[in-house]
């Protein structure tokens, strides 16, 4: 049994120690904060347009898949509470080739996700300008681009810790959503005498439910970022499983409720027309201008915090690769003045800017999901392999329940969901994964990776 109290201290005199500073709430905030930006504030309009009210099933499918992966990830993370998350598990269990693909895939997946969140942010900012009657200074793309530059700059030079800010943002988001969902839920059920928009549950048939699930899966990428900072989490055997599983359950519930309320109040056709910021009008329908303002503010905060969290996680992924010599050591250099890994942060920020110029929100979301689903599937496989081989030092304090059914289903569902994406996304995502394999063969063929350290 890994004794929790024994995790932080390595008190051999003169040895450097690494403080674990993230408790349960900050860990939950990392997971939730990375996720809510997309599921509630960008997708409802797009998803309802594709699947109708059944989009709530799409979100539920996503939650089930995320949960099937969060359980194995929890076991692996308590066995290896190290920085690097999914990359670390896969490289230790399945070798450097797949590890390299997952690691680079995680970095680029986060880059795509961050570009997607920032496009969402651009839409919200443009909406805000419209509401306030300010002439739009820039296009949505321009706004997203400006924010990407600003975020990257701040992440390199900012020395103030925004951890507390992140907790505060997530807390106020949950409060806004709680009010919105509570009041809106009663409204949607007709408590206040409102007529529901009459609509078939599956206006477009059942198949779009799955393609929509593939599209909106970007809403479930955050929990694995908790594993990326596993090395900094206090009492990891307790807090890792709780925060990962808890954040998936929390956001999954919020998403399904949001779609239920949105489609009940406005109908999916109108939602689809409203696009990325549809939720603002749902807020207006419930409590008028105040509701619209609250959700507009919420959308700005949520997309921004998701984008920021993704940039930081991307930089952590690059460090994990560099530590194992899978990418050149220069990328992990830390800037002496700001003590930030400026190369890795720029390697996140630069491609984000390029992707924003590309600008296709759905494709950005799907490629981000695809790269993560590849990792999720392999995380499940990694658990199956480690349980079978039971290598020395593998002593998880959390055991994945329902073994081997849960990881098997998790792997099949993760890989399977990719099949419902658009051909362009599959082509792009597949191409990126092939390129990562190419990188391994070109650069890192001779690398051997150490065993599991605990």
């Amino acid at each position, binding site marked *: 049994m890994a004794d929790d109290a024994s995790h*932080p*201290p390595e*008190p051999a*005199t*003169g*040895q*450097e*120690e*690494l*403080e*674990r*500073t993230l408790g349960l709430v900050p860990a939950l905030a990392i997971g939730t904060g990375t996720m809510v930006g997309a599921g509630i504030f960008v997708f409802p309009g797009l998803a309802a347009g594709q699947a109708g009210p059944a989009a709530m099933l799409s979100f539920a499918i996503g939650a089930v898949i995320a949960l099937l992966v969060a359980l194995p990830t929890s076991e692996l993370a308590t066995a290896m509470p190290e*920085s690097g998350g999914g990359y670390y598990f896969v490289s230790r269990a399945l070798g450097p080739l797949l590890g390299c693909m997952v690691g680079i895939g995680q970095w680029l997946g986060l880059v795509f996700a961050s570009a997607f969140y920032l496009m969402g942010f651009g839409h919200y900012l443009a909406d805000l300008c419209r509401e306030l009657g300010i002439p739009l200074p820039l296009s949505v793309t321009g706004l997203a681009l400006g924010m990407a530059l600003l975020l990257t700059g701040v*992440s*390199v030079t*900012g*020395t103030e*810790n*925004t*951890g507390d800010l992140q907790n505060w943002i997530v807390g106020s988001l949950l409060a806004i959503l709680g009010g919105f969902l509570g009041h809106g839920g009663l409204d949607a059920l007709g408590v206040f005498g409102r007529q529901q928009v009459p609509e078939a549950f599956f206006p477009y048939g059942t198949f779009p439910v799955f393609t929509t699930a593939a599209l909106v899966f970007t809403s479930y990428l955050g929990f694995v970022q908790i594993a990326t*900072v596993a*090395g*900094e989490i206090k009492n990891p055997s307790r807090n890792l499983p709780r925060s990962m599983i808890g954040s998936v359950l929390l956001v999954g519930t919020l998403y399904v409720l949001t779609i239920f309320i949105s489609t009940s109040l406005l109908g999916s056709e109108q939602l689809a027309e409203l696009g990325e910021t549809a939720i603002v009008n749902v807020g207006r329908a419930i409590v008028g201008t105040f509701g619209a303002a609250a959700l507009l503010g919420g959308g700005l905060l949520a997309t921004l915090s998701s984008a920021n969290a993704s940039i*930081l996680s991307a*930089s*952590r992924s690059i*460090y994990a690769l560099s*530590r194992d010599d899978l990418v050149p050591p220069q990328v*992990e*250099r*830390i800037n002496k003045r*700001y*003590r*930030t*890994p400026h190369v890795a*942060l720029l390697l996140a920020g630069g491609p984000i800017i390029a992707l924003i110029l590309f600008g296709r929100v759905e494709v950005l979301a799907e490629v981000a999901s695809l790269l993560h689903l590849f990792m999720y599937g392999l995380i499940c496989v990694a658990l199956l392999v480690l349980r079978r081989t039971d290598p020395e030092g593998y002593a998880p304090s959390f055991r994945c329940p329902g073994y081997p059914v849960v990881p098997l289903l998790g792997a099949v569902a993760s890989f399977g969901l990719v099949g419902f994406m658009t051909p362009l996304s599959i082509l792009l995502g597949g191409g990126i994964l092939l390129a990562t394999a190419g990188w391994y063969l070109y650069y890192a063929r001779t690398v051997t990776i150490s065993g599991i350290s605990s």
Partner: protein
Amino acid sequence: MTESVPSPSSILVDVELPDPEPLAPGLTEMLSSLRVVLLGWYAVPEQTSPEQARDQFGDEARAALAEIAQDFEAAGAEVTPRLVFTGDKFDSLGRISREEHCDAVLVPTPMDRDHLRRVLVPLRGLHNARRIAPFVADLVQDDTTDVTLLHILEEDETEDASRADVLEPAAEMMREHGIDAGLLRLDARATDDPADTIVERSGEYDLVVLGETKPSVRSILFGSVPEQIVRQAQVPVIVVRHEDVEAEVAERAAQAD
């Protein structure tokens, strides 16, 4: 269970790395009779994994810490160095003071005195003094340092009552622990604002030693009664920690025989 040579009281001294604020030479000398847990902390922003910072700055930080440890060792202190890469210095301070069972924590103030001769010990009550007395005794072993016990009167407490109930018994405790009676001064004062009075009095001393109000290091430095004193005092402050469960058990055992 009984130790023939009791180990000296321990104090947590934290220094920021790699460029620590220099400690006053007199302070290093003053603490030399104690076991000094020297915590060097290297602040890591959230964008950076502490591990990554350790990989790059570990050597530099270790060298800087070793230099300070040498100063203390040269003055005769028993030094336990700890080096932490941390995103939250208070987490590290709290954890290490617990792990090392530190009796007290130093809150240094930049000053330039070669010898510390006058120590102010504000007391809240006898319970408070019980914990502080052995520490102060270890601190002033060279018998050249004046120790002033200061008690702020409760609302309708008279000065005589304060002397009889708190100051005299506290002084007796100090003497029992080996402090020279000739070096002890007693001071009872009435005031509306205890913290302010203590801060004001501290200007005439070289060092303040006071007891912690809450059992956490974070609260020493943030939001508790001594906070104001710690922040405003012109001289270094040593905060003597609450008794741990361990110490209480030991005390009960001692009272039993």
